[in-house]
């Protein structure tokens, strides 16, 4: 554990800047600390920098300046097997899903558990359980390329939570979903949250964060424009999804 974080901090970002060539400032001077077990919303308009921030958190990209620590480790200095182990503990649902379209739904979800050598029986059960939660049991053996966008989105989310990671990063989880599917997705995320996972959700879907009791950070043009809390009324269709959490005071 480094000096920058205490034992309850999952994510520590200090003066993080991300600049793309030639001189596009995607993130500017972002400093935020997210506690272990917290559900955290990242909001802002398209192009505000939400996805860039998530990419920095999952080490898909490196910051131009600043420090990012996950569970006390500077993730951009970790390499090799240590990085692989760290990534096994971070589940990511990408905005573009990153599904293998020539593989079945079950194989896509299983991939995150296979890399950490889970037992085949455990993998099979977990896949079936996740599909049941998302009401996609009948899609088990279908190729993901044959699914609708909404179904693909839910499969991507199932893969992110399948390995029971301690940190889940979700980019626009409800972008292609109707109200019922949105409720299922939030239910799934709240289960992981209740199990102790830290969850960071980047979204511009106001309906999923407005009534939560969790912290909401708004980004505008790459800078933090506000850091607030929801009104705490909770998500109407998913009991407990938005409540509980261990969000710190702002």
């Amino acid at each position, binding site marked *: 554990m480094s000096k920058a974080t205490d034992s309850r901090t999952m994510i520590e970002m200090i003066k993080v800047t991300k600049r793309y060539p030639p001189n596009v400032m995607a993130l500017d001077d972002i400093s935020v600390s997210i506690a272990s077990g917290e559900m955290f919303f990242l909001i802002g308009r398209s192009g505000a920098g939400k996805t860039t921030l998530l990419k920095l958190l999952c080490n898909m990209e490196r910051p131009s300046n600043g420090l990012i620590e996950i569970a006390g480790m500077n993730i951009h200095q970790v390499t090799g097997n240590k990085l692989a182990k*760290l990534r096994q503990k971070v589940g990511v649902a990408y905005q573009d899903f*990153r599904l*293998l379209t020539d593989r079945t739904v079950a194989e896509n979800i299983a991939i995150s558990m296979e890399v950490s050598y889970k037992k085949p029986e455990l993998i099979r059960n977990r896949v079936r359980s996740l599909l049941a939660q998302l009401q996609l049991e009948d899609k088990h053996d279908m190729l993901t390329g044959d699914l609708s966008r909404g179904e693909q989105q839910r499969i991507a989310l199932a893969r992110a939570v399948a390995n029971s990671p301690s940190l889940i990063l979700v980019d626009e989880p409800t972008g292609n979903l109707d109200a019922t599917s949105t409720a299922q997705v939030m239910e799934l995320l709240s289960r992981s949250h209740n199990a102790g996972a830290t969850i960071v959700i980047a979204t511009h879907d106001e309906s999923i964060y407005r009534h939560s009791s969790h912290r909401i950070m708004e980004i505008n043009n790459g800078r933090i424009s506000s850091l607030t809390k929801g009104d705490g009324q909770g998500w109407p269709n998913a009991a407990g999804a938005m409540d509980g959490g261990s969000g710190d005071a702002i």
Partner: protein
Amino acid sequence: MNFWFSIFRQTGRNLRQTWTTMFMTCLTVSLSVLIFSFFYLIYLNMLNAESRLSNELRLVVYLEEEPGPELQEQMRLKISRFDQVEEIKFISKAEAFNRFADQLGDNREVLTDMPQDFLPASIEVIPLKTLRNLSQVKLFAEYLATLPGTQMVQYGQKWIERFYSFIKLLSIVVLISGFLLILTATFMVASTIRLTIVSRQEELELLKLVGATNNYIRTPFLLEGILVGLMGSLLGLASLYALFQWTTHHLAGAGFLDLFTFIFFPPGIIFIIIALSIVLCTAGSYTSMQKFLRI
């Protein structure tokens, strides 16, 4: 699920998806092994023939006069002074005549009117097995020519020289073809694996993002390299063996080929060829994977 179980499953999945490409690579490797082994087998058989010819190598020193026992002893000493020899045999004129008559067989009556001493006396020198180098044989022959009373020295110079030149040429062909084919096989395997990697880049990137270790990503490709190397070399050697059997069966008793006793590779060489093929194919896979894993 342990590491190797995952790896074998991943390898099986890869092979199912890319079996046509792998099959073509396997054929290329087997063809490379076949061509190289073909030349090498010829070379090996030539060496075998050379060894047999060397065993029968003898220098014949034709003399002007038949030497008496004293002169024979002196000559024996002089010859031994150049180098130790296996055997020195003096052939008298009469003995030479009888040998010739034996060689003529039923036609020996052509010698009826010939005098018994029309053939020159000679010394047959069988050099030691260590003296097998053509230049050494030449030097020895030149030395023998300086012996007193020597008419000429014969050891089938022209034939032996041609044979040695042919073996030298063949060894160069084997070396060059071997080198080129090794490059070809390695390059082919590396290219195929690289193509497979490019076609599966999305999947491999995802594997990295979900926390697969480099070994988890790399090992299936290395196993594919090993498999291609093994199958390719086995196929190549099996084809060569079939060709060898056909040749020995169909060309047995055909003219000059009777001079040779054809041999196939001993188990040790077969093992080395297979091992080399596996190592090269695995190296091809490894280099391609390293390039990807560095990205």
